[in-house]
């Protein structure tokens, strides 16, 4: 699906018109805006293409700002995979070839979760007022949506490189099986969290909580930030009366000091890494399995109020 919608992109039936701009290895290049898409592209096109994903490990691709040289490299790509849902804001302020871009979340854009945290305002008297509202963008944490994005990626690859359609289809089948297994494991694991007092450190889990029928209160904390009295009060205010267990979901491994503070506050620490950026070790599937493992270790302790080391 070489499609374009809201991000001013377009689709092109590139068909047999593969771009002659090749990587130094002579292979076509596929650029991706986040690691899940880069991983899908790597799995699907390992035989014939190279994947360009510049943000280094530890960088959040959602807020990455490419240099002019990096944009020039991306412009040369045969295919540019966008996440959609407003992810990677740089894509709307940089020049990328519309005809090579694919928004991988188009098939479920009606299911985007709207965020209403902007203020309605106007700039000039007489002009219409507006709100800078957006949608939640960590779409792949719903692993079925991740499967849809993988399928979109495969369709775009087949359209761009029809001569590799067999290998792409074969790899897609394998990838969808892996993602399906993960989804089932995640669903089984998180079943015990339904109705629990769940606090997440960052507002990136909207699709995850919706997909697995959870309810979470979002904070805006960094795993390494110092948690003072105000933060602890904020945390205490999230407590739901009557909840039997309380869990705190971190994006990445927090500092030991923060682990201890959360533990003292009566929460069980769990790490669920969204994996937007390239992990230092392993790949997307490994990180998701680690997330499930972290949940499996933390959830059983919900009956008691003891904390678990993530």
């Amino acid at each position: 699906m070489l499609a374009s919608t809201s991000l001013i992109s377009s689709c092109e039936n590139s068909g047999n018109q593969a771009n002659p701009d090749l990587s130094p290895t002579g292979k076509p290049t596929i650029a991706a805006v986040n690691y899940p898409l880069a991983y899908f592209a790597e799995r699907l096109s390992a035989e014939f293409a190279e994947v360009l994903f510049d943000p280094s490990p530890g960088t959040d691709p959602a807020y990455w700002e490419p240099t002019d040289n990096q944009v020039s490299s991306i412009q040369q790509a045969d295919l540019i995979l966008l996440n959609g849902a407003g992810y990677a804001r740089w894509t709307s302020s940089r020049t990328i070839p519309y005809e090579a871009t694919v928004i991988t979340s188009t098939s479920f854009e009606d299911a985007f979760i709207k965020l209403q945290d902007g203020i309605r305002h106007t700039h000039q008297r007489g002009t219409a007022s507006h709100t800078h509202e957006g949608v939640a963008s960590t779409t792949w944490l719903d692993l079925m949506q991740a499967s849809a994005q993988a399928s979109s990626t495969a369709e775009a690859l087949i359209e761009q490189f029809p001569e590799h359609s067999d290998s792409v289809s074969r790899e897609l089948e394998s990838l969808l099986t892996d993602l399906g297994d993960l989804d089932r494991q995640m669903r089984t694991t998180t079943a015990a969290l339904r109705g629990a007092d769940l606090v997440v450190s960052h507002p990136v889990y909207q699709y995850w909580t919706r997909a697995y029928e959870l309810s979470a209160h979002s904070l805006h904390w960094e795993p390494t930030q110092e948690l003072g009295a105000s933060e602890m009060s904020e945390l205490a205010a999230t407590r739901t009366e009557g909840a039997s267990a309380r869990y705190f979901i971190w994006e990445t491994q927090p500092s030991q000091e923060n682990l201890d503070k959360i533990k003292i506050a009566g929460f069980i620490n769990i790490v669920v890494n969204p994996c937007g950026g390239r992990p230092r070790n392993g790949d997307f599937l490994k990180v998701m399995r680690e997330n499930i493992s972290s949940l499996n270790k933390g959830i059983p302790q919900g009956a008691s109020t003891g904390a678990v080391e993530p």
Partner: protein
Amino acid sequence: MRSSSIVYLSWKALRYRPLRSLLLIGTIALTLYFPRALQEFINRSEEVLSARARSTPLLIGPRGSSIDLTLNALYFTSQELPALRYSSYEALSQKNYGKTIPIYSRFLAGQSPLVGTSLAYFKLRGLTVSTGRTMTRLGDCVIGANLAQNENLQPGDTITSSPENIFDLAGVYPLRMRITGILAPNRTPDDDAIFVDLKSAWIIEGLAHGHEELSRSETLELQRDSKGEFLRANASVIEFNEVTDTNVGDFHFHGDRGNYPLSSVILVPHNQKQRALALAHYGDPVTAEQIVIPAVAVEQLAKTLFATQRLAFTAFTLLGIAALALALMVFLLSFRLREREMLTYSKIGATGRAVACLQGVEVLVIIAAATILAQAGIVLTRSAAQDIFTRLIS
């Protein structure tokens, strides 16, 4: 009388009356030049028009004059038709009819057309960046070779868009754009144009803007309308008129992008089937857009040019006949005035044939000089026709 003597005496006679000789040469040269030059200009213009039209397979735009649509897309003439909605472009892109290249050619920077498009445009036209690099972010532009040379512009310099109406004080700010590259010359209107990302053109349109964070209470006033309360940024909120590395993240778009304007979309089908499907789809009068084959539109324009050419050719021919008759009269009068001179030649032994040769050589020298001059003018016209035509039409 020897031939060399005849030539010598003729040359002396012509030099003795230089003004008369030059006037005759000029008159005859212009008489020969104009009809041929017009023909050359029209032929070359048609070639230029056709070449650019042929490299633009299909054009989708709002309904209206196909020639206006074609000239706007190919020569960046003023946009006479209403805008095409961006949603139409999106719909076209999803129809799998081929490569789609958006064109938004409405604004100017000085006298130069400012064209919002995608990077695919450069590939379509075979344009390469000779100095610098292509645009990479909002507010970047690449400019044509002529513009760079005439205005002495280099990558790193800036160029500012012109407001459409200088009296619209409340209108959008002109955008100061960063020149990132100079295109190699290709002797088309692209040489005089400024190319920006489509999104940059929308900033100039006022559909996107950047401003400082609306977080300071002193920048906001509480207002109320039918939808409830909202905040109005007061005059202290500065809107950016230039995109920089620092503020690029603050630029944002408002409204439904489906309603954003375009001038037209160049459609490049990859095969005959896609072309036929596109022609069939947009050939339906129910659709809001029209499809134009630029080569056909240009052919219509060329027919108009040919009609003009025929009219002008007839006028020039009649004028030429009159001018030649006048030249003939000048020759005859001149020979009458020189009767005594010719009589002297006869008395000193020149035969009647030699005297006739003497007069004939004078006429031949003048006609030859006029022909050479006219031909030189025609050659110059032929070589300059493309540039002249491009400038005239743009």
